[in-house]
């Protein structure tokens, strides 16, 4: 099983996320993370979905997604073909932070940022690879100072020079 990242573009219509996730459900593949946002092309939404499965399965899933009428494009990538990042928020107990200097050292070692401090809690953010975030969480958790933790779905850009979608839309422009 490999971690694949599927990058998908669709028209901005209601219900398409449901159509996309239904493909995973039918094939009994769990989505590890999911990010949906507007893309650089007006009216087009971009989905970044990660999942563990076989290459055979990711091919099937990608084709089934692209088959949906209002999906413009779906492509899958392995970790070496993309730059992937996540953002995480850690809510820490301020008294722990003050008492235990190793906590601040861990935060600095991970190049995380403290963005809010008050008497009861402090908020730390980290942008990085999923494993960087895992690593910081494990370290902080060992101090017992994590009050809350959340991370966003992975986002990724491909190593192609341009968006593949732009190339697709240009080909359409030539043909129509």
């Amino acid at each position, binding site marked *: 099983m490999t971690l694949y990242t599927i990058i998908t573009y*669709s*028209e901005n219509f209601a*219900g398409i996320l*449901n*159509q996309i996730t*239904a493909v995973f459900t*039918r094939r009994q593949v769990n989505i590890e993370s999911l990010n949906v946002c507007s893309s650089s092309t007006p009216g087009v939404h971009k989905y970044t979905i990660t999942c563990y499965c076989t290459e*055979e399965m990711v*091919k*099937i899933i990608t*084709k*089934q997604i*692209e*088959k949906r*009428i*209002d*999906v*413009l494009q779906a492509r899958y990538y392995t970790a070496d073909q993309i730059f992937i990042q996540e953002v995480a928020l850690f809510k820490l107990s301020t008294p722990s932070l003050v008492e235990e200097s190793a906590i601040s050292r861990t935060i600095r070692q991970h190049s995380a940022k403290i963005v809010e401090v008050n008497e009861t809690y402090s908020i730390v953010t980290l942008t990085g690879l999923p494993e960087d975030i895992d690593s910081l969480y494990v370290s902080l958790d060992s101090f017992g100072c994590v009050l809350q933790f959340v991370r966003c779905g992975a986002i990724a850009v491909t190593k192609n020079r341009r968006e593949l979608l732009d190339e697709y*839309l240009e080909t*359409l422009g030539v043909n*129509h």
Partner: protein
Amino acid sequence: MPNNKITGAEALMRSLENEGVTTLFGYPGGAIMPSYDALYDHRSTLNHILVRHEQGAVHAAQGYARVSGKVGCAIVTSGPGAMNTVTGVADAMIDSTPLVVICGQVGAAFLGTDAFQEVDVIGVTQPITKWNFQIRRAEDVAWAVSRAFYIAKSGRPGPVVLDFTKNAQTSLVDYEPKRVDFIRSYLPVPQIDETAIKTAAKMINHSERPFMLVGQGVELGDARKELRELIEKANIPVGCTMLGLSALPSDHPLNKGMLGMHGNLGPNVLTNQCDLLIAVGMRFDDRVTGNINTYARQAKVIHFEIDPSEVNKNVHADLAVLGDCKQTLAEVIKYVQPADNSLWISRFTPYEQQENEKVIEPAIHPAEGPLLMGEVVRRVSELTENKAILVTDVGQNQLFGCRYFKFTEGRSVLTSGGCGTMGFGLPAAIGATFGAPERTVCLFVGDGGLQMTIQELGTIMEQHTPVKIILLNNNYLGNVRQWQYLFFHKRYSFTPMLNPDYEKIADGYGIKARTVVERKDLDDAINEMLQTDGPFLLQCAVMEEDNVLPMTPPGANVDEMMLEIK
């Protein structure tokens, strides 16, 4: 300034006319009433067939679409009306039938409030439609209807559901006809790759034992002529899937019969002996392949497909030839060389002889004993000169129907393949009589399936549709009983069935009926049925515990067919 505004409901009617719709099947109800009111003024152009249950409307639209090649259209109300169409929509999805189903919906202001007869139709039908859309504004009617028809019929066809809110039906709009023939996110037919064409031809030319699997894609793509040219030029024997049975005349020397669990022996066994398997417009359903792990492992596979998501889904293809098979087959013909495969083709003969002797002859020419389904099917086929449309329900009637009915013309098989929907037959046959009014429509149905949609006899009565209903009555849910016999130690759990008097039922609907018990009366009864102007119910009291053979047991290898049950 003159007021040119019309209601959304009226816009729907004009949009349907604009799409060339002439026939629609439906059932009115609360949330679709404004549209039915508009329909009242369009009765001369839009022939509305009132069914007796919404499931009947969709199956009838499917029957209409499959025999005519046009988009079938159904119109129903919200909530229960829409939910009753779900089986038919799912059936059309798996069997690639172009449909547009229009459902009423509560007013947009009530959406999500659990209003009376509100169901989340978009949510329910999302996985079983090619596209669905909720029309919440009258302004969207023309666009949505045109887009629906374009999506339903283009590329690999499929069903589209339009969920039409009541406010959108009643509000006023400046109507302007729309024509959608391009969607930037949708490529209905993949571009043909010339290299794939040439590689396919090369593989065919180098093959010593080629075998072709023909699916419904050949019919949908209107590629019967191209198929014939290719197989005749390169001498390729062919097996047809159930839905592809009439893609090639049954008596064509290269047509080696039906594939699958209850198909013919030769094409199934030799699937595992060919060196090149050429699949055209078929999807390697498990009922065709049997055990996928031993399926045609010795062969290279070429897959001609319009839908890229079918390639490598079940069977690995060494070469995919994407595109419309009418074009791709025509291209490949240019590069294939005439071949003499007579030695290979002759290998089908012993299997044909064996099956003929052990299975076919006893099924169609029994010397004694009760009437058999197989002989009824074959006689109806012969007495219609193999020119009729075969409609079946699901079960033994379907398997015997598909095995023993013979075809000379295209678009002649109307059966629920992928979904296996009991109750499909009667309404589908009604639809077929509207889709191909010049043809004879023969429905084979069991006593189980008939009762699932028996209310459509009312539609037949009202429309006087000339459906020839051949009821193969064995007082059992026969196919399930056969499986219980084979795999559940003959424990007939709820498969024997007490039947009503079907002649009386037919009589109640004013439909002529006759029952045949004895073999000697069969021909006369069939002739009476065929000569009767209008509908006819021919009840055949067939052997109760008959089995469809040969059979590949579920999960067995494709070449492990049982010819007899010991």
